[in-house]
């Protein structure tokens, strides 16, 4: 996504939910929404971390002011 932000690794945008954050990102960096959302949902394969914690992966997730959000590829795992 760095290429969309003109190389910026972290950017600050307003928003009370992940949905709003993505919308605001899209306003500043067009193309962002297509990367992160599919219709009204988070795109399959995208994971959202808020303040270091992996969330439920929903655009409805609430975000506090000053929260740090990361969009990363989702992982899956295997145990016994």
């Amino acid at each position: 996504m760095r290429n969309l932000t003109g190389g910026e690794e972290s950017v600050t945008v307003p928003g009370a939910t992940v949905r709003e954050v993505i919308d605001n990102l899209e306003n500043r960096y067009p193309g962002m929404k297509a990367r992160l959302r599919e219709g009204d949902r988070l795109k399959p394969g995208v994971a959202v971390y808020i303040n270091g914690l992996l969330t439920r992966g929903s655009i409805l997730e609430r975000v506090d002011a000053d929260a740090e959000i990361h969009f990363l590829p989702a992982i899956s795992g295997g145990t016994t």
Partner: protein
Amino acid sequence: MTENKEYKVVGTRPIRHDGVDKVTGRALYGADFQIAGLLHGRVLRSPHAHARILSIDTSRAEALPGVKGVVTAADLPTAEDRIADLGEGAVNLKYLCDNIFASDKALYKGHAVAAVAATNPHIAEEACTLIDVEYEVLPPVLEVRQAMEPDAPLLHENIKTTSMGETAEEPSNVASHIQHKLGDPEKGFAEADIVIERDFVTGTVHQGYIEPHNATAHFNQDGQLTIWCSTQGAFTVREQVAEILQHPISKIKVVPMEIGGGFGGKISVYIKPVAALLAKKTGKPVKVLMSRTDVFEGTGPTPASYIRVKMGATKAGKITAAEAYLAFEAGAYPGSPVGPGAMCIFAPYNIENVIIDGYDVVVNKPKTAPYRAPGAPNAAFGSETVLDEIAEELGIDPLEIRLINAAKEGDRRADGPIHPRIGFIETVEAAKSHPHYTAPNGKKHHGRGIASGYWFNIGLESSVTINVNADGTINLIEGSTDIGGTRSSIAMQAAEVLDIPAESVNPSVVDTNSVGYTAVTGGSRTTYATGYAAYEAAQDVKRKMIERAAKLWEVDESNVQFADGVFSSINGKEEQISFRDLCGRLGETGGPVVGSGTVNPGGAGGAYATHIVDVVVDEETGKVEVLRYTAVQDAGKAIHPSYVEGQIQGGAVQGIGWALNEEYIYNDEGEMTNASFLDYRMPTCLDLPMIDAVIVEVPNPGHPYGVRGVGEVPIVPPMAAIANAIYDAIGIRMTELPMSPNRLLKAMGKI
């Protein structure tokens, strides 16, 4: 180990609830399922690693007496090129379908091409030999670096490398490139007093579960499909089969039978849709079983990889910069675990300047599937070996250098997020003071090595229902298939809330029509998330029982409390009733009590492990023998310590096999030449010492009892730990897995 005194059930070691069934042979696994009128299905697989399918003629097979139906890719609905989330991460449906039956091209030896249902398995096998498939054989590409060459044979015309959001013009075997960057790596390396860079190669390895895949399906005339099978997740089977067959999920019931190991390999479906197609065609229930060779050749192993790691440090041992290049073989379709590998590689350390590049590359091998901490073991083999070399060059103890650089709460991972409360330092400190580490180690050709590892762990959805019985026991209904004692670790969390013994809980794992959605048993999530749902369901029961007690005593609910297994009224009336007695009075106070808990928790806590191993190297034969093994791990909170130890021991031993013996061996035509348990050599008990599992408990704030997942991280450190021990023994750095006698002899210059 820290025993936490405040719990009565959590942290104890009851006999597992399904134990008697499993030691008497009564437990029914997938292949044990029987039903009247059953047909037997077998799958025909491609003998070529890369071939265009020109035609398939099934007429001779259909004519064989006893054959009831034959299916091929033509029986599958046409799949769209679309990404769906099917409980094991995002999947492209076209690839998912093509992996069930090759349509235009066979992309690996063992790729399913057709299947037969017959009145007995031998007839089905014979019929497979009567299917005539015309192939145009193409050159295979079998190794990740070769597959990345611009002139390499292409597996897919339509795959173009996506790199950080941009898609390339030309087709390629490189499906994607990812990058994580932190700080200024160039500056970091300039600040280093020592910089070490090494290349690593790891082989393709299989999960090696002892039970082959199996599936029995029945298709009713009304379209109701039932599938009995072994799986890590009945709901993900339902979702995958629904997408592949374009059949509504409401018309599919998946009944999870007992499962004989999975380790990530029983999440993707292979023969389940095949059994369903055969059942639909024949109108009869059909059971399809894989042979061991089918399992090796036709199901997802974990990838071979090429890895380059560069790390720089100051004289004092502080890592100033780290760089990694990871190229993973995805197998026939994109989707290797290079993503998690890239996210885990430096996660034990707090490094300011990092750059990590990962490549997902298709080759003519089976599509890879998750295997315990997928991607992380490959990555750690590289990073933990380089760190060992740095420590050695600087004359710093290898555990000490880990402490100097250890990541802790608030530090930033290279892929971005900051660490919550983690227990890495605690594992290193426990290793340092362990008698194994302080024991002398000086004999000739004996060596000691250590390594650490990280795995995220995941949360995801789980549902639990509790039905209260009149005798003070509860029936607990869950959707997580039990592969290693999770019925007990889940039941114990409910028991703790209700203050009843673990034995007073009857846990049942039920089908997809009988419990709320529950994600796979995988990602080290079961005791964490389904345990969390059990905790919530028990809290719900407790709330409802308080209402009943209040009713009984005609007081307000706020005046009833529950402690030590007894409800009592506070303020005013002096009433008391035990949980058990109140259970006997539910009918008269409003009817049965049913509690439910559903979760999708966001607080899965990452897990760290630090392992110590002693080896002896036989100079004549090149054989490495493991003499002593200690595995320290942060479990957050061990609900049933015996099964936590079991996960640690089992994971460590799979790592030992990966380190020393296991690999797919291919000939130039792309045929696996060791597709049996005789030649794909997994550790036997004769190859091993006891495995000392040391549990450290740094509670995860994201779980009521502090649970972190435990199943995956123990497979991360062994390869590097053993390589470091070999170096300590004979002074040679091994950079290729497995470190088999042959490779050792070569490295020692003996052959």
